[in-house]
């Protein structure tokens, strides 16, 4: 089962388990994690599920689509080299990924 460690901008850490096929966004939202808003529900229409991914986890994740790349230009907190939209990060198997959530999503 996939596992995600979320660290908020204030430094709060939550370690959450998901099911195969869940996205990093879905696991957060199902558990009521405040750092990920995900207004559009995962349709690449809001950029409010922005996360910074730990460098070594970047390559285990699905590559970024053009639309995700464009939507990352529309995040509230400026994108960085390790920015992703967490609704696009579907997890399979026993991966454990680490992400940081930005100070603000809206």
């Amino acid at each position: 089962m996939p596992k995600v460690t979320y660290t908020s901008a204030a430094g709060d850490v939550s370690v959450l388990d998901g099911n195969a096929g869940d996205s990093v966004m879905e696991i957060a939202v199902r558990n009521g994690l405040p750092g990920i808003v995900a207004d559009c529900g995962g349709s690449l229409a809001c950029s409010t599920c922005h996360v910074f991914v730990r460098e070594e986890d970047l390559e285990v994740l699905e590559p970024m689509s053009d639309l995700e790349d464009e939507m990352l230009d529309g995040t509230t907190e400026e994108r960085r080299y390790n920015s992703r939209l967490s609704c696009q990060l579907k997890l399979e198997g026993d991966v454990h990924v680490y992400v940081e959530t930005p100070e603000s999503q809206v």
Partner: protein
Amino acid sequence: MTEQTAVETEARTDRPVVDFDHNAEEHAKDPVASYRRLRSEGPVVWTESWGGYWVLSGYDAIFDAARDDEMFSSARSPHGGEGQAILIPKRPITEHFPIDLDPPASMPYRRIMNQLLTPSRVEEMRPMVEKYTALFIDDIIESGEADFATLTGIPSIITIDWLSLPVEDWRRYSFAHRKVLSAPLGSPEYIKVTEEELPALTEKVKEVIAERRRNPGDDPISFILGHEIGGRPITEEEVLNMVDLIISGGVGTVASLSGQALEWLSAHPDVRQRLIDNPDLMQNAVEEFLRFFSPTQALARTVGQDADFHGVKVRKGDRALLAWSSGNRDAAGGFDNPDEVDIERMPNRHMAFGVGSHRCAGSHLGRLMARTILTQVLERMPDYKVDHANVVRYPRQGVNTGFDRLPATFTPGKRLLGERL
């Protein structure tokens, strides 16, 4: 033919039928109670009003439908008459892109919208938003009384100036966009606005688009004109389809949100005082006002194929109303005490901007305008009082809620700026 009718009749007997019409006066009197009753009947129910439609009132059903464009299409189609498919009954107005299309056809237009309305572009608009809000308040502050229903003027003038349309027309836009929502259907005022005034304003927009094609500048219309759709230049008509959507999407909604929040704060002075003392709470408070008031109450889709959906059998061509406002009051959305305003509510996954691929493209600008209006009113008229007995709401509250009259009084203050509106 007979056989087909028989099949349809049989399927319809499965349908949990309720007596409901989101455009009716009954519903307008108390939309919250009306949707609470529907949710108690089931998350998806059927009404025979307007040729028949499903009403999705449960959070999960609305969420799932809005996320599935194939099953719940917002594209125009022959089902349920001519016109815009996101409305029941449909309204035969200018096509609006991307909302009148499904992915993938909607995507090229949506991508342009996204780029126009990113947080950083909206941040660049902040000085303009603050200036017009201040000018608007200047206009009323010396008198000690005002009709907050005219707040429509603020998003109107901001939108018009941003789009580089003739700014002097802002009163016409403000008036027309309010009257479309508040004048009784079929009344002389309604007919004048929909058949003369709005088409006249559209003609002007067309002229501006043609002019920008010849002389591009640094403005949103020129920006849109600079794009391609599937490898060919975007047409002037397509630009109009987008600009008309921007104008009609942002004006009434922002005025409605600010007006309802001001009315509520007048009745809840303790919360108003907290916001005056802690302006940092405003951002979260606006999210809660969005959830609680849901300026866009409900929008429609057309079912794309026969399927089982949240306990009912929906059929291709059926019309369906997605009641964002009802989802926002459903505890299933993760809201504790959903009928109470909690300006510190967190998380708050409200549906006031919709859900899915058409989720509001203008949310950052909408939030900025609403936040600025509320902040400046609280700063400059901290003791304003709404005359609750004389408030007049729109006669229809099925799609847009808002006010035809929202009279208020306050201690008169001084103008801030040298210029005038």
